[in-house]
């Protein structure tokens, strides 16, 4: 589904990613871990097409197409979804209105008919029930006055409604207490399927107790320094990231 080759990314005049390789197949869950400043979030945002991140080398192919050549909104309509680390507030625009516009933009792109207000509300009410979400939240403005936990849950709810092919979670666990973490993880697990892939960016192993990854990659100083199965996460938990410094120094 996703082939990343030697990806190099600059932001604010600094080289952040210095040649990342990653292959993600449909149905897989990949965790990207690493210390602060290693480039984890940059990787997520560059894949989503954030304008502040400049790709200076390498390539990324998504479903056989050049991902980096697509506008951010086209990537989204093609099925790439990123759950934000810091979801943005939009005053005066209700969650329902926002989500309906997003869903219909995607449906139109897929050659499906746009949903009218009634059809849409039926759909989101069902999803809200499934994800144990208070439906009254749909009437509130996008992320406005939401607690940290509510914002993250809202991101996962959007994921559930938009049903992307590739979902990238950018430190979705940061700032969540254990209950909220569980709710978010349950949502993600419910969305796991053979034709959908996840890239879970996280600093802590904690989230991976709930979302069991197929692969774990450790990013340090802009490159993936180790890849392995879910046990790698446990190893990191035990040793911390300190050993990377030593490994980096000796490399």
């Amino acid at each position, binding site marked *: 589904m996703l082939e990343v080759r030697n990806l190099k990314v600059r932001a604010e005049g600094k080289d952040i990613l210095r040649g990342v390789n990653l292959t993600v197949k449909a149905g897989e869950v990949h965790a990207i871990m690493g210390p602060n400043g290693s480039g984890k979030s940059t990787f997520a945002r560059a894949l989503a097409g954030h304008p502040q991140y400049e790709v200076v080398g390498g390539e990324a192919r998504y479903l056989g197409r050049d991902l980096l050549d697509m506008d*951010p909104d086209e990537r989204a309509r093609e099925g790439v979804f990123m759950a934000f680390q810091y979801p943005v507030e939009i*005053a005066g625009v209700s969650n329902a209105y926002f989500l309906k516009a997003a869903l219909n933009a995607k449906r139109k792109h897929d050659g499906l008919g746009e949903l009218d207000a009634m059809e849409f509300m039926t759909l989101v009410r069902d999803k809200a029930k499934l994800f144990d979400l208070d439906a009254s939240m749909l009437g509130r403005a996008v992320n406005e006055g939401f607690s940290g936990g509510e914002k993250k849950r809202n991101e996962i709810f959007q994921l559930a409604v938009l049903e992307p092919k590739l979902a990238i979670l950018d430190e979705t666990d940061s700032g969540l207490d254990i209950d909220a973490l569980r709710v978010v993880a349950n949502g993600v697990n419910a969305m796991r399927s053979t034709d959908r892939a996840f890239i879970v960016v996280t600093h802590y192993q904690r989230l991976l107790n709930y979302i069991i990854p197929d692969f774990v990659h450790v990013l340090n100083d802009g490159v993936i320094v180790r890849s392995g199965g879910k046990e790698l996460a446990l190893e990191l938990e035990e040793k911390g990231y300190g050993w990377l410094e030593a490994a980096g120094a000796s490399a």
Partner: protein
Amino acid sequence: MTTATRTIEELANREYKYGFVTDVEQEIVPIGLSEDVVRLISAKKEEPEWMLEWRLKAYRAWLRMTEPTWHNVHYPPIDYQAISYYAAPKQRPKLNSLDEVDPEIRATFEKLGIPLEEQKLLSGVAVDAVFDSVSVATTFRKKLGELGIIFCSFSEAVREHPELVKAHLGSVVPHTDNFFAALNAAVFSDGSFAYIPKGVRCPMELSTYFRINAQNTGQFERTLIVAEEGSYVSYLEGCTAPMRDENQLHAAVVELVAQANATIKYSTIQNWYPGDKEGRGGIYNFVTKRGLCKGAASKITWTQVETGSAITWKYPSCILQGDRSIGEFYSVAVTNNRQQADTGTKMIHIGKDTKSTIVSKGISAGFGQNTYRGAVKIGKNAKNARNYSQCDSLLIGDKCGAHTFPYLEIKNTSARVEHEASTSKIGDEQIFYCRQRGLATEDAVNMIVSGFCRQVFRELPMEFAVEAQKLLGVSLEGSVG
């Protein structure tokens, strides 16, 4: 103008889709202003002597007045002798039915989406269409007449209902009120008149659609709405003009009178030609709008969506004379490219327990300059007066400006006055968030701007709210790279 040049011009300015010119035979008074011109206009309209006298009084007052300079808009001096003060489509003087309207003019209004055939008006809106200086058609008159509601052109009101016009004309905006209002009083050529009798709730929206067509002319219309005790009316005005390289002056006056327990809702969607990207052409919009809440518990609500004009200068205001009367002002003003707006309101509290609400949303993009100017005055007898003001500015890009000038004058200690203001920028992060969910940049901007304006849009009648939202999108087209 030939079709070819028109097409090119339209392509170059495709943001403004109402910029076409109607080819219709016009009767235009030579340029310049003098007592003779005032007399000529009055004679053309076959006005009674008292009307001419009033005009002349205004003209003489205007001669002694100077153009205001306190505003935060900048433009080269206007040569008042280079403007023609009257333009009218040539046609039979009096229309007995809508079928007699010049087909070219009818086509114009249809192109603008304002059908004049009554059977087509499914939305149930009665329309008075003003083309250049004169009213060409008023729809649904019979139906309204059965309820005693008068809705007609101003000229007709002068002829048919002189006692009503005489009683209220200038009672809210005197002929000496200000430079532009005095000019209007001297040369106004037409406008709309509405009268809602006691206890009647007007069953449909009343609407006036103003269209400037002729070149080198000013448009000076006057609207007077009188709502008798316990009545209700919702009124909407819309306006467009062709694209021309030179500036055109529009100086209108609107007077509203609400008697006890009466409610007037006055909504404006102003989309005069704003000029091109470099600031060439466009309408100079100098307008005086004021409502008098004369009786107890009367209410006047101004809602405006100002997207057009090169210069907008207007302050729809309320004089809260009756006890417990209510004044409201909801405004969205957009300035893109080189547009300038200096707009706001005045809430003058005279009666006891009077209440006013001001919600102003200014949006600046390109090199646009947007100024909110508002005054809240609480008189010494206005016990327990309350005002709430909220002024929000939204900036798109870094070459535009937003300015806020609130004035407060409070002479009664029991008053409660609140003022909130904010300035924000549409952030890259907000736009990226929307795009990551699949929305194109323009749709993202429209959504963010609509959200910003929501408090105002919800005050508009439903179908106009939709129209306003679309218009906003068009006005801001290309403002985010």
